[in-house]
């Protein structure tokens, strides 16, 4: 988890706090834009299809006299899709929308739980204020001014936007080997990382880092200082696969 991201620290019943990375203005704007495009497309799609069905031809022009059927079947549902999109989807998807999912964020209560319906309702009602005067101006200022990047709606509902916890690469090879290896876990992780990045490094960097790590593990590197890359690579792999337990 990146240390640069502000974190929401939640107390847990276990006594071990939970750290959740808080999403900032950029992630919010990204998610909002995706959602805006989706609801615009959905609203227009409904309007187009319903107008064609209503008119009985391929014309998208509204009828010269707007009757109740046209308004009820064409305009009202299209407006409902556009304006109720966030409220309905956040409620059904437990604090997420397609845009938030794509941006990798979700709405969460301040205690780390999924927000209740009342909180989502309050959060969305305050969009009226956040969207003033233009382009979510007040909301954006609030997001930038508050410590946990919360707009007025989030302050009112006790919610915030957090990043989905990234699927961090499992330290499997390194840590599991370290459990049996002669070497410490941190060193094993470093060796594992070096082997993973081996193809990306220059020849000079490979040799330098390999020698440093081998020296860290207490090996005599004098004899290896003149060794070529392939030998050093083999030596690192031998370290990782070594199964001799460290003596206590």
């Amino acid at each position, binding site marked *: 988890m990146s240390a640069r991201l502000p974190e929401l620290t939640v107390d847990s019943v276990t006594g071990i706090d939970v750290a959740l990375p808080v999403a900032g203005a950029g992630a919010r704007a990204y998610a909002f834009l995706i959602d805006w495009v989706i609801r615009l497309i959905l609203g227009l799609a409904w309007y187009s299809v319903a107008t064609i069905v209503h008119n009985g031809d391929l014309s998208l022009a509204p009828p010269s006299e707007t009757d109740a059927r046209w*308004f009820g079947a064409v305009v009202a549902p299209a407006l409902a899709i556009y304006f109720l999109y966030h409220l309905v989807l956040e409620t059904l998807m437990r604090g997420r929308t397609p845009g938030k999912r794509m941006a990798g964020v979700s709405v969460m209560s301040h205690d780390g739980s999924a927000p209740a319906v009342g909180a989502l309702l309050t959060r969305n*009602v305050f969009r009226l204020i956040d969207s003033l005067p233009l382009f979510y101006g007040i909301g954006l200022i609030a997001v930038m001014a508050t410590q946990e990047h919360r707009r007025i709606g989030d302050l*009112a509902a006790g919610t915030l936007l957090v990043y989905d916890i990234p699927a961090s690469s499992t330290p499997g090879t390194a840590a599991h080997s*370290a459990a049996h290896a002669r070497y410490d*876990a941190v060193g094993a992780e470093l060796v594992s990382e070096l082997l993973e990045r081996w193809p990306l490094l220059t020849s000079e960097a490979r040799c330098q880092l390999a020698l440093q790590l081998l020296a860290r593990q207490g090996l005599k590197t004098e004899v290896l200082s003149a060794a070529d890359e392939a030998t050093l690579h083999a030596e690192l792999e031998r370290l990782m696969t070594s199964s001799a337990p460290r003596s206590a």
Partner: protein
Amino acid sequence: MSSSAGRQALTANLLSRMPLWREADARARRLALGHLDEASDAIRLAQDYRLLAHDLARVRTLLPGTRTREYLEGAYARAHVTLHRGAWRADRALIGLFRDELPAVVRWLLPYILWCTAIFILTVVAGYALVHEYPELIGLFASPELIATVERGQLWTEGLLNVVPSSVLSVQILTNNIVVTLFAYCAGILFGLGTLYILGLNGLIVGAVFAFVGQHGLAKQLFSFIVPHGCVELSVMCLSGAAGAALGEALVRPGPGGRSESFRIAALRSGKLLSACALLLVGAGLIEGYVSPNPRFSLATRVVIGVGYWLFMLALLSGRLFPRRHTVS
């Protein structure tokens, strides 16, 4: 055994539990994608959560700054989020909202509702008195078109259905009313002053228009037009005003938790009332589109509809619409 060797042994023991972490994390991910409704799933997840918490505490001490810690932090957070997501039943949430939460909110807001109603009535009386005494002041409250229509001896509502169909009229009215109601609530963020302004202005307009219409002998027609939808519509205005006033008071006189916390609590509690307000306004909008401008409805019918809908509102807000079933043992 030296302390360093002991530490190594602890680390090795801890890392040997890696397969358990992977299993727990995989289970949390799987449950996060689906519904966590089965008790056995929740119990298993709680066990995983405890296991991850226990091991994370040791990893934070023994292996800080490692990928192992990073992985375990992520797995623990995922388990926490999944475990605290809870079961989700939309029908139960809605029934709970209308049967239990809404009446509690109304009870809490009762003093605010009474005060806002009093303020609204006072501003209606003030608006009426102002225009009754100084008829030229109607220009402050009504549009020139409305004034001209009334001066011709007609209400602006006459022949409305010849211009706009009922459904269109209903949607326009209910949309407008819902937006005004939400604004009246949200304006509470200005320490309650915004809410009072919207409430007072609406009261003044109602009173002023009634006085002006009365001066042209049209008061009975206006009353007949307003009564079917107005009982609920004006009550909802007072309700949203009360919710906004509660927000304002939380900011003006915050509790021990501070201004931000007081605002959050007040907004979360009072915000629930708005769902009922929006629903009631949908009904009022339909009545205003289909019944109010339709001359075929007599005054008595209109009064019955208006009062009946108002009683329905009281039943909804008091929780009597969704009574609890009493079980007999």
